[in-house]
């Protein structure tokens, strides 16, 4: 537990108020719960990353020589499940959102602190089940659980994996519920909707998706489990079922789920870009509307995962058109971030480097999404490495960049310590280079026609695969670095001032680390978000 590493800041804060394992495991303090989440998802990030490395190593050569076919299938399945359900979905909302939302809106805690703790326990229980699944032999359905493969043709631990995700899903639902109610009901006096930081808006939009989408995944996975237990045929054509129904229900959640993963990242980037440009966000209203628009439109496009699956021609056209509509607000956001830097005062601190990386990679990921939404092209590139590259540009290039940027940005607030700036920038650059080397070749591979989830492949694809694997090793180093220096900084880092970046926002007006109830007295908000004109722009401390 992190308690041991806490040094001796003078003021009483949420970290040094109490010690001992029970003070953490039974805490209802949103900040401590955020740290519990942090530990949990970091653990799962490295498990998922380990699987990813094994996948890339296997793909170094065209022959299937490092792993057995079944093992390889389990690797990519569990890589997906662990990374999506136990890292990406909880990452920003449950760690940074949990820590920051109450503070940003001027509240002492989330509306339902005990439900918040329950959410973490659910994730932990789901996580334990996932670990059990991994240790007892794994599961090889693909993270998508496509039927009837998952229901009638595999004898791996499908039910355990489905149950793990089911339980983790309830964690996600309850987090979303908590955030929605908190943002509605707990705002400090004067903190109107138009004054909310965009990070809060982004998490609000995310919560809408979590609350409305996740139950559908839950019931779908229950039906898969029941189908296996009772040998039903809901999704099995041999017994009269329609496997496409599963895909509809699955993607009804799982497409919006990518917005669960990316929207909070967008919120983080909005905070970072404004802070390190020392400037108001360009087009606040458009930015806030855009996240809500993404959350709503994101629910109308799911069948674009199914253009070649055998759905009707006309439904495919409807979903393709709607997919373009959801691209519009994403484009707006990119334009606004870029414009925010215009005539700003741009500093190159580590979080800003991550934000640069985010904007660039998200742009590429988003633009390749236009290729995939074009029906004619999608037929060729769906289920190939083009798709793999596309969603990794969004999820890893976008989301993980944003998450790491946010971790660096708020680390002084969370831990009360500064991280080493040099190492921070170095890691950011290594990650950027490693990421592009890993995933850019995959776009080419995809258009050449290399299908995804292939354990062995045709020799002409090898050169690009070798490049990709080389990139993955660089990426792995890049991810280990922050882990190391964050831990180091908890003991040896310079103590952080309350506002090391001269940033706007309520969280920078309280002590680092915050006290248990965040605010000594409820703040009264009289300013707009990102009021950088009212904040001095000295060179930040801590360099």
């Amino acid at each position, binding site marked *: 537990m992190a308690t041991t590493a806490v040094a001796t800041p003078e003021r009483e804060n949420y970290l040094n108020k109490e010690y001992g394992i029970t003070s953490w495991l039974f805490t209802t303090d949103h900040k401590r719960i955020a740290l519990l989440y942090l530990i949990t998802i970091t653990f799962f990030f490295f498990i998922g990353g380990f699987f990813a490395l094994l996948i890339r190593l296997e793909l170094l050569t065209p022959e299937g020589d490092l792993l057995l076919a079944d093992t390889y299938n389990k690797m990519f399945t569990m890589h997906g499940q662990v990374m999506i359900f136990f890292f990406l979905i909880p990452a920003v909302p449950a760690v940074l959102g949990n820590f920051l939302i109450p503070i940003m809106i001027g509240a002492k805690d989330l509306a339902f602190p005990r439900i918040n703790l329950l959410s973490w326990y659910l994730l932990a229980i789901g996580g334990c089940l996932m670990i059990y699944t991994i240790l007892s032999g794994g599961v090889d359905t693909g993270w998508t659980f496509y039927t009837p493969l998952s229901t009638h043709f595999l004898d791996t631990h499908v039910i355990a994996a489905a149950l793990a995700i089911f339980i983790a899903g309830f964690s996600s639902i309850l987090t979303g519920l908590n955030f929605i109610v908190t943002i509605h009901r707990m705002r400090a006096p004067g903190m109107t909707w138009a004054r909310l930081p965009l990070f809060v808006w982004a998490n609000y939009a995310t919560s809408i998706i979590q609350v409305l989408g996740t139950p559908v995944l839950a019931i779908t996975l229950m039906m898969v489990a029941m189908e296996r237990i009772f040998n039903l045929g809901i999704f099995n054509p041999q017994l009269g079922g329609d496997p496409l129904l599963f895909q509809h229900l699955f993607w009804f959640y799982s497409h919006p789920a990518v917005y669960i993963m990316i929207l909070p990242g967008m919120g983080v980037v909005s905070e970072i870009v404004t802070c390190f440009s*020392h400037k108001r966000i360009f087009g606040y209203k458009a930015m806030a509307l855009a996240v809500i628009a993404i959350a709503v439109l994101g629910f109308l496009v799911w069948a674009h995962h199914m253009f070649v699956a055998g759905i009707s021609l006309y439904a495919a056209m409807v979903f393709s058109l709607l997919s373009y509509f959801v691209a519009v607000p994403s484009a707006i956001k990119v334009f606004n971030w870029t414009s925010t830097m215009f005539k700003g005062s741009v500093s190159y601190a580590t979080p800003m480097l991550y934000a640069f990386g985010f904007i660039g990679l998200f742009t590429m990921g988003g633009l390749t999404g236009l290729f995939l939404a074009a029906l004619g092209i*999608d037929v060729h590139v769906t289920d190939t490495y083009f798709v793999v590259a596309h969603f990794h540009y969004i999820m890893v290039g976008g989301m993980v960049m944003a998450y790491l940027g946010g971790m660096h940005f708020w680390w002084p607030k969370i831990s009360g310590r500064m991280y080493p700036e040099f190492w921070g920038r170095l890691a950011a650059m290594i990650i950027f280079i490693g990421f592009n080397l890993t995933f850019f070749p995959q776009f080419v591979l995809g258009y050449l026609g290399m299908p995804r989830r292939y354990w062995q492949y045709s020799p002409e694809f090898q050169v690009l695969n070798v490049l990709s694997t080389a990139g993955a090793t660089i990426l792995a180093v890049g991810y280990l670095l922050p882990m190391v220096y964050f831990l180091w900084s908890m003991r040896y880092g310079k103590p952080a001032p309350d506002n090391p970046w001269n940033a706007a926002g309520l969280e920078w007006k309280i002590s680092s680390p915050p006290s248990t109830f965040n605010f000594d007295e409820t703040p009264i908000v009289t300013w707009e978000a990102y009021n950088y004109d009212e904040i001095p*722009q000295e060179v930040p401390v801590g360099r």
Partner: protein
Amino acid sequence: MFSNTFPLWPTRASTLSGQVDALFIFLLMLCGLVCISIFIAIVVFAIRYRRRPGHRATQIEGSNAVEFTWTTIPAGIFVIIFVWGAYIYFQERTPPKDSMDVYTVAKQWMWKFQHTEGQREINELHVPIGRDVRVIMTSQDVIHSFYVPAFRIKQDVLPGRYTIAWFHATRAGTYHLFCAEYCGTNHSGMIGDVVVMEPAQFQTWLSGGQPMGSLSQQGQGLFQSLGCSTCHRLDTQGRGPNLMGVFGKPVLLEDGRTVTADENYVRESILSPAAKVVSGFKPIMPTFQGIVSEEQLNALVAYVKSLSAQPTGAGQTPTFRGPAGAKADTRQR
């Protein structure tokens, strides 16, 4: 392109692949331009407005006019891309008439092809240049996906129904056939070759001997031996509908709905006869689920189809007896 060991562009070997490439290249240029503009903007802003002593940020709230502009312009461009993409997709999903049919059964982990002439192949598909080829596919177990990168086509193969892909090969050669939908342990081994031949060569290959006769002949044999012909008689006296000329026509059902008698309807009528009973008939037909294999089913479908292939004389529509038949006919006009 470039070389065999390090290709950077897939071969174009069908009429559609050029169209897909054209849209792809258009998008590459368009998105490349957008992408580079944004990168340049970021770099320029980051350098020009870098934080330095004496430089202060100018606060800008944003501008509704600008927001409106960069909302509507992308939206307009997106609609163009959508229409272009949908146009290609429409062609991909609507096979031309008079195509050559190849029946395909996918199973873990192989591809089985049945030509209408009776040839059978495994993991290898021979087709001629210059003909529209319809691949009528079904799966024996899980979902697979028929993917030929050189043709830029992909279609999932579902158990329990037919899905159809089509292409018109333009270039002789041997091309990859991949299964693109994860289908279990040996997914990556479920690969094959599509061999595109000159028409003359293809004819030679076809005449290489088909011991069991054409597919519809095999189907006819099954039609007799399974006893189908006792009810589905070629007159109006049978207990089941006369199947002559039915294929491809609308059928009025007992519950008032109308369906088209396509491959999937024939298939369903053999496996779940009571699901869509033709108007005027009783649901007395037994199911053939588990009795006929997927390959036999294909042969039966090919046979039923062949019953409609011969051009029938004008005014001769002996499809159904009774009012039902009359209704079905009027709807068809």
